[in-house]
Each structure stands twice: as C-alpha cells, then as structure tokens.
C-alpha cells in the first residue's frame, strides 16, 4: 500500500560486489572478546568468572534493567579474563575474553522456549539476545513490548540501501522461509494483522523468493522499494510501506508500526525453533583492498583483524576501515576491535578512498534540501550551527535529522553537513537540559516557597 508519494533521497552507486555470494561460516578464532554493551540501554554484567568453562549459547552477561539484552558466549572455551578496554564505539567497556577450545560444544541451556502467551513470547524475545541488527541495536524485546492493539503493521526491513553491503540479501535468499515463519510468529503473539516485507528493487531474486515462500499469503505482502538511499531508514520505510510519517521523538509503535531488520527476525526465529540465541553475525567483507570480498558468518566477539585475516587478508595497504555501510558506517582508528551485534559489514579501503574531502564555500545549490528525506534544510542548519544560533536550529527542526548523510553525500562543496548537524543536535540537547534544569530549579524554589508559606500559615493558626 504505497501512497504513491515518496520521501526524498539520493542515488548512490551501489557497488554491491558481493551480491549473490552465499554466507560462509568463518572458522572459530583463537580468542573472542565479548563486550558487555552491544545494545542501546544499560550495559550487562558478566555472570561468569575468570577460569569458568563456557559453551556456545551460554549466558555470560545479563542485566536487570529493562532496556537491555542478555549476552551469550559465541564459542566454547575458557574465560581467560574479564577486562576493561575500549570497544569500537570509543567507549571503555567490560569485555569477557574467552580462549576457544575449538570444540564448539553447545550449551545445555540451548533448548527451544515454550511459548503460551504474549508474556512468554516477550520473555523469549529478550532471552534470545536479539537487538536491532540493522545497526540501531535497540533491544527487540522493548520494541515488541507495545500496548495491545497499538500496532497494526509489522514491517520486515530488507531494503539494504547502503552500498557494498549484501548480507541481508544473501540471508534473504537463504532463509526466506525462516524469516516468513518468524514474521508469522511475531504477528500471532503481538496480534498484528498486516505484514510487509520491504525490499529494494535491485534485489529481484529476493523479492521472487519471498513471493514464492508466501505463496499467496493474504496477510503478508512483499513491497518493492525504489532504489533510493535511505529506503532502509526506519522513518523512510514506514512512510513507504504505510504512508505514515514518523516524526522525531516518536516511536514506530506510535504510528502503529514495528520495523524489524530481516536478520533480527531470522535470529529470533532461530532462537524460537532451536533455542540458540544470538551468537554470530552475518557480515559483508568488502572494499578495494580486500583480497576476497565475501559474506561471512562471524562469531560475535571476533577481532576485526582476525576476520580480515581469516577471510583472505588484504591486497594493499589499508587506510580506512568502515564498520557498516559507507553512508552511515563508522570509521575506526584501529582494527583490533571485536565484532559486535550491530555490525553488518567491514569495509577496508586504501588511500584513494580515504582522502579527506576539502571543504569549500556553500553555493546554496539546494542539493542538500532536495536530498533530505526529512525535508530539512541542511545548509540553513549548518549556518545556524556556525552562528551557534540555537533558536534558529530549533526553528529549522534540527532534532528531526536522522543522520542519513544524504546532505553531505550530495554536497558539491563537500561540506560535512550531517556531522555539523549532529553536533548541532547535541548543542540543542545541552540547551534543553540547561533550560529544564533551570525550570526545575525555579519550580523547586516556588514549591519550597509555597511550602514555607504553608508552614507559616499552619504555624500562625
């Protein structure tokens, strides 16, 4: 049910060099380093100690805060250390270092959960350790915990709009049936009537595959999305699938939608049928210095350098490594970081790709405005940021930016617009905080005054 209207975006060269490649499991590395914070929300605490023997799928980290997801061992072996060091996010985090024994024994706890009610289902979702695997890493159990009747559409996000990445595509081809089953289960327990699978038109084989699997299912449809970046962004795919606008500060559930990445649903379904929680990730390994671009299944916690090494190594000097796609992915300073739940690609590039773009003056060409899916005016925001004009930033809706990078991609002056807007957002948030604190202080003062007066009155009586 596309409304015929579309959100704006940009055409990005796809460069899907690994398209059509199956996902090959990677050999187990010597050691894995599993960080305790691989999701948005409270970090987990280790529930194993140094010297413990762990098996694949065994719970090693958990947290009693609701917004979190448990963490499981991706290998069998011995806990060698529990240490603090920096993860790929640039944060210092507790890491469980496991020396593998190569046996990959499966833990006894890995048994399919028994689900009889909505509550059981949500519990199982949490136990699976699944988070938003598209990169957002928001705990899926929280996302699914909506008010009954609030959500009418489940959207399976198979857009994969970033260049280079093809893992979702490969996963869709290999596991379409599991994904559809997963959707049906979710729709059953959360009482969702309609399911939509959104896939960009550059993956006709995946679309055909789903149509074949669905075989005329009336509740679930496959929607072909245009080949425009960023179709896979939550707000864009919701609009394309339902015609509803998700504005800043609202959750998809507020407009009656749940959006889940194809691999999130797949991993959830695998947990529901086999009991194996999220312990490995599908990754695309690509870039112009990668010797053998391919799609691999990697145990979570594997060092990125190990992944590169195990998969054929490099054929040139690497200057830039990006985790995720080139549009929104993060460039990392070194490659001895562990693979985490939210990663979907490792892209390695040489100098030609890594050169910094030289910024020139804005010529007001309007390409950033024409490319912004949120209909913002990035050039204006950039100016307001330069002037530190917080009122103007608010007036031009800086908080609605979702960091897709379309503006900076299309800017002929090579301005890092979304980076500036990101900083502008934190500027506004700081200001909000200050204002809130001020208002609270004033309210507290007023309350104290009222209290004092009351006491005085009471005293005088």
């Amino acid at each position, binding site marked *: 049910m596309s409304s015929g209207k579309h*959100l704006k975006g*940009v055409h990005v060269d796809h460069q899907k060099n690994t398209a059509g490649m199956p996902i090959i499991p990677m050999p187990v590395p*010597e*050691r894995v380093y599993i960080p305790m914070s691989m999701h948005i929300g409270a970090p987990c605490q280790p529930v194993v100690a140094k010297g413990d023997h762990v098996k694949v799928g065994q719970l090693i980290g958990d947290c009693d805060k609701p917004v979190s997801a448990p963490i499981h061992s991706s290998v069998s072996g011995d806990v060698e250390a529990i240490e603090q060091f920096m993860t790929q996010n640039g944060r210092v985090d507790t890491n469980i270092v496991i020396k593998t024994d190569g046996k990959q024994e499966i833990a006894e706890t890995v048994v399919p959960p028994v689900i009889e009610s909505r509550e059981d289902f949500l519990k199982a979702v949490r136990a699976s350790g699944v988070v938003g695997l598209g990169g957002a890493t928001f705990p899926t159990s929280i996302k699914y915990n909506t008010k009954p009747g609030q959500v009418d559409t489940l959207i399976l996000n198979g857009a994969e709009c970033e260049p280079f990445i093809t893992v979702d595509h490969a996963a869709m081809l290999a596991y379409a049936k599991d994904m559809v089953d997963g959707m049906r289960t979710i729709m059953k327990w959360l009482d969702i009537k309609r399911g939509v699978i959104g896939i960009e038109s550059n993956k006709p084989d995946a679309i055909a595959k789903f149509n074949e699997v669905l075989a005329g299912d009336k509740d679930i449809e496959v929607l072909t999305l245009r080949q425009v970046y960023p179709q896979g962004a939550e707000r864009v795919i919701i*609009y394309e699938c339902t015609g*509803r*606008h998700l*504005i*800043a500060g609202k959750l998809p559930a507020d407009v009656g939608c749940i959006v889940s990445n194809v691999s999130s649903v797949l991993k959830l379904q695998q947990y529901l049928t086999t009991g194996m929680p999220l312990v490995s990730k599908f990754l695309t390994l690509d870039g112009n210095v990668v010797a053998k671009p391919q799609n691999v299944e990697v145990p979570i916690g594997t*060092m990125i*350098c*190990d992944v590169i090494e*195990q998969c054929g190594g490099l054929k040139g000097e*690497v*200057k*830039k*490594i*990006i985790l995720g796609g*080139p*549009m*929104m*992915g993060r*460039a*990392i*300073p*070194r*490659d*001895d970081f562990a693979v985490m739940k939210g990663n979907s690609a490792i892209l390695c*590039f040489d100098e030609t*790709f*890594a050169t910094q*773009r030289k910024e*020139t*003056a*804005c*010529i*007001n*060409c*309007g390409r950033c*405005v024409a490319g*912004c*899916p*949120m*209909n913002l*005016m990035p*050039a*204006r925001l950039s100016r307001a940021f330069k002037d530190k004009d917080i009122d103007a930033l*608010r*007036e031009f*809706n800086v908080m*609605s930016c979702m*960091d897709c*990078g379309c503006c*900076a*991609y*299309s800017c002929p*002056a*090579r301005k890092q617009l*979304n980076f500036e807007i*990101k900083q502008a957002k934190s500027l506004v948030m700081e200001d909000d905080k200050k204002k809130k604190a001020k208002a609270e202080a004033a309210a507290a003062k007023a309350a104290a005054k009222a209290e004092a007066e009351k006491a005085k009155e009471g005293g005088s009586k």
Partner: protein
Amino acid sequence: MADKHTNLIVSSAPHVCNPADTATIMRDVVIALIPALAVAIYVFGFRALLMTAVCAAACVFFEWAVRKIMGRENTIGDWSAVVTGVILAFNLPVNMPIWMAVIGCFIAIVVVKQIFGGLGQNFANPAIVGRIALFIGFATPMTTWAVTEKMSQAIINNAGVDAVTGATPLAMLNAGAAELPSNLEMFLGTINGSMGEISACALLIGGIYLVVRKVISPAIPVSFIATVAVLAAVMGYDPIFQVCAGGVMLGAIFMATDYVTSPITTKGRIIFGIGCGIFTMLIRAFASYPEGVSFAILLMNILTPHIDSITRSKLNGVPKKGGAEK
C-alpha cells in the same frame, strides 16, 4: 592474533560522496555556454571570442588578485570566476571598449562577490550587477549594437546611415520599426544585441544540457520564460518574439539560476521565476529602458531572502505548521 592495523583514517560518515563538486558544476555551465559563443562568433566575428576571453581572464585575474591581497585561499580553481566572466561578456555589445568590459569584471568579482566574502556569500549575481553598472555608467557604448552581414535583412535595412550600427529588435519594436526580424531569425539568432543573448536556440541547447546534467532545475527558467510569454500575450505583444528577444533566454537559463542568489526550494524558485518574468515585462513595456531582464533578476535576487523565508521546506508529517518544536 592477526596483524593489527593502527592509525587508520577516521572521518565522519558519509564516506562516499557524489562526484559532482563546485568545480564540475561550474565547468558544466561553461560547457553549456559554448553553443551561444559559437553563434556569437559566427554572427559577430572574431571579436566576440576576444571579448569573451578577455572577460573570463579578467575575472579570474581579479579573483586571484583580491584573494591574494586579502590573504585568503586561492579559489580560482572552482571555475566560478570563469562563469561570471563569460556570462558578463555575453551581456555586452561586441564593440564595447575592452577597458570598459574589464571595469565590469572588476565590479562583478571584487565589488559584488569578494567584498562580501567570496563565492556563496554574495546576495546579487555578479555578472548582472556588472552589466547594470556598465549599462548605467557607460550608456552609449552599452547600447551601440554592431550590425553585420550575417544578420537578418530586417536589421540591416533598419540600420543607421553608417550601416554599421543599428537597434536591437526590442528597441526597434519600441521605436515602432516598420519591419521586424521574423520569429525564426529571432530564434536562431541572426540579430544584433549583446553577444551571447542573440541566439535563443543555442542558449536553449545549453539549458537542456544543464538540466540533463542536473546542474540546474528547470523551475526557474520554465517559470520565467512562461511568465514572459503569458504576459506578452496579455499585453498584446508576440510572445515568441518577446521570449527570444533581448536577454530573456540568457537570463532565465544562466543568470536567474545562479544558485547563490536564487531561492533554495523548488517552490521558492518558481516564485522567483515568475517575479523575474513580471518585472521584465513591466520594464520592457513601461520603463525608459527597452530591456529589463537584468533589473528584474537583480530585484528578485534582493527579494530572495524573503522568498526563502516564506517557502522554507516544511517538516514531514507536521501538517500546516512550520516550526514543529517551537
């Protein structure tokens, strides 16, 4: 463990960008101006090429010199000075004294652009201000139009006693000349006038190239030209003659579409184009100057900030209210 790589380059996303940058855009504009230059050389001879080259070189020189004096980064690599120079040359009569053209270049680059901080910060189109300043400052040389044997018979017949200079079709219309060039001649450009504006056909080819290359959006040219045509029809003129005459084509395709001085949203651009068309026809019909394109564009340049503020893009999903988070 495998070899580690450290000291990798870290930068903010996105890590890829569109191949078009300011220099390629400006270069495309220069390419789009070539057909009009070819017609100018055909009609006026070698001097058309000389004028264009001198203006382009002067603009580049002034850009370089001023940046040097101000101690700022050299920006001639962005080709914008070349564009200004060529467009300014196209706005001048072919027999204009060279030194006057150079003054125009000085005004365009130094006064209009660099005093305000350089590319992207000027509020008026440099070439237009350069042209208007020359037009008002040197009225006679700016309105002395060469007549060559390549031109339409109507123009040659209408030429003055010296048979070397004559009036532009618009001035002929204003003066009530008995015989006007045919619409085909107007379209092809075998008429006299400023160097680059004579051939609607060549300018149109350039414009189509720019639209195909996505350098300009058709919003401004289409609304500008359409408004001129409609108003001409309403006022009782021949719309095709009015559109092909004078600087409408050159202005609509190359000067009004200057990014820096036109609105940023499509809606704003349409308003901008319509405004240009209205003022052009008002000045043509009523003011003491036969041609009003540059004044109209300058006026709309000045109005652009206001147009931008009333047509700012609305946030998605927030019906009928500009500021969602006010």
